[in-house]
């Protein structure tokens, strides 16, 4: 194994271990997931009933899967718009980070992957389990959607990370990134399909949403793992995600190198 890769794998493990320290916070996060999940499920169930049993291809069972899978993924994909790199840019600690022998963006990606993987255990799986036990879910019975689904989730987490990284790195130019982060949070949660699946959007809004990376963060992984998109469709979904990973990653890299040139360290 090349030494570089070993470093990043250690960082993934570190991200995982660090997250594991906040047990009570995880429990609180799970409670929040469940409250929102029950309310969202009630709304979308009522909408499916009101539409006469099917709505944009969803039945009560499949919309339930949508709700609980998305509640389960909230912790991992972290739509909040905050990333640790933001604090490091604001405090100036990033100057030290640039001297480290690892790539700044990939290092933070590795830690975030570890963090995301951990959240699936205390928040992701229990959310899906609670949904299955209380209202019932319709899930695929063959292994392929799950295998592709895991890949799609990893890609979704990566897109989310790269996007948050790009937003937070703007701190090189802005005194306070809070405004930008709020705008990101609001646009991202809506267009990713957190409250209402993107599939229910009117055509123009649906088209608009798919011009952004946001549906690839949440709607796409759920489509793949729940078997809504099968075969060629699932492969097309994943290819689209790969393109978005590349695009958003590049945006972050360009901003990082521009910011690096702008950064002035006040000695001392």
């Amino acid at each position, binding site marked *: 194994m090349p030494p570089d890769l070993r470093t990043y794998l250690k960082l993934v493990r570190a991200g995982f271990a660090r997250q594991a320290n906040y047990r009570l*916070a995880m429990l609180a996060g799970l409670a*929040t997931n469940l409250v929102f999940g029950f309310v969202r499920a*009630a709304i979308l*169930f*009522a909408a499916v009933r009101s*539409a006469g049993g099917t709505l944009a291809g969803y039945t009560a069972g499949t919309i339930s899967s949508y709700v609980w899978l998305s509640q389960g993924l909230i912790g991992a994909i972290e739509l909040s718009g905050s990333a640790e790199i933001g604090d490091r840019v604001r405090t100036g600690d990033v100057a030290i980070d640039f001297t480290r022998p690892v790539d700044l963006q990939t290092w933070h990606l590795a830690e975030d992957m570890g963090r995301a993987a951990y959240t699936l255990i205390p928040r992701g799986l229990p959310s899906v389990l609670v949904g299955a036990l209380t209202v019932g879910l319709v899930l695929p019975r063959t292994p392929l959607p799950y295998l592709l689904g895991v890949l799609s989730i990893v890609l979704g987490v990566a897109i989310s990370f790269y996007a948050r990284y790009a937003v937070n790195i703007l701190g090189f130019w802005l*005194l306070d990134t809070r405004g930008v982060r709020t*705008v990101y949070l609001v*646009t991202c949660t809506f267009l990713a399909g957190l409250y209402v699946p993107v599939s*229910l959007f009117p055509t123009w809004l649906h088209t608009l949403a798919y011009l952004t990376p946001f549906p690839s963060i949440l709607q796409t992984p759920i489509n793949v793992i729940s078997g809504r998109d099968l075969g060629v469709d699932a492969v097309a979904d994943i290819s689209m995600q790969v393109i978005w990973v590349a695009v958003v990653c590049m945006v972050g890299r360009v901003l990082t190198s521009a910011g690096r040139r702008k950064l002035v360290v006040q000695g001392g």
Partner: protein
Amino acid sequence: MAEPSAWSPYAAVLASRMRAQLSYPTGFALDVMGSLLIAVTEFGEVWVIFHNVHVLGGLTFDAVLVLFGLSNLGFGTADLLFGHLDTLPVFIRAGTLDAFYLRPLPVLTQLMTSELDLRRIARMVVFAITLVVGLRLSHVSWNLHNFALVTISVVFGTVIFCALFVCAASLQFFLINAPELTNSFTYGGSYASSQPAAIFPTPLKLLFGFLVPVVFTGYLPTLALLHLPGPELLPAWLAWLTPVAALWVWLVALVLWRWGTRHYQGGGG
């Protein structure tokens, strides 16, 4: 100079907080835009649902506008007055809460008046417009009965949500670093309050109807304004008991707060 009243320390802090926010006009303008965008997307979520169906939980889109406006005006005002209580976990973790204990004023009123986030006013405009448009489209006339209902709903709705902010903050004394649980009370409560409660299964009706009585802030008054009967467990006449619901949550909030502030042991240092 007049004798300083009991309110003057609070007024001085608030005035300084407002001046501080306005001293960065660009940042403030961005924050206002963000706050407006939040209100617009919240409305967008409701609109997308009604793009697909005509009736949800017995309410038409016009009726849901009234519900959305009422509940969010209450929550928005409470968020303006008490929303900054969610910085309590930061004070607790950093140990800076000790300073609040040392001053000769109640901790809760000091925290309440420690900030007044002006940008939060922006989205109230969206909610007020939604309410007025909804009332017009639903042909609700401005007679004494309806005026009283709207006033009770917004005023006591605010009082109810303020109490929820206090409840959530009180729990922070026990759960170090778990601001997310606060969100399930406050933002979760607000989210639930802007839905037609008829769609809820019985456990949720009981939870949001009586334990965390957010249906009093929007749904019940909407039913009463539009002369709709309401589902089982939640008849429309309950709307007139909104002050009782407010009293109940404040009782719980004050007990929890007392319990929390006594439990706090200081951050040392």
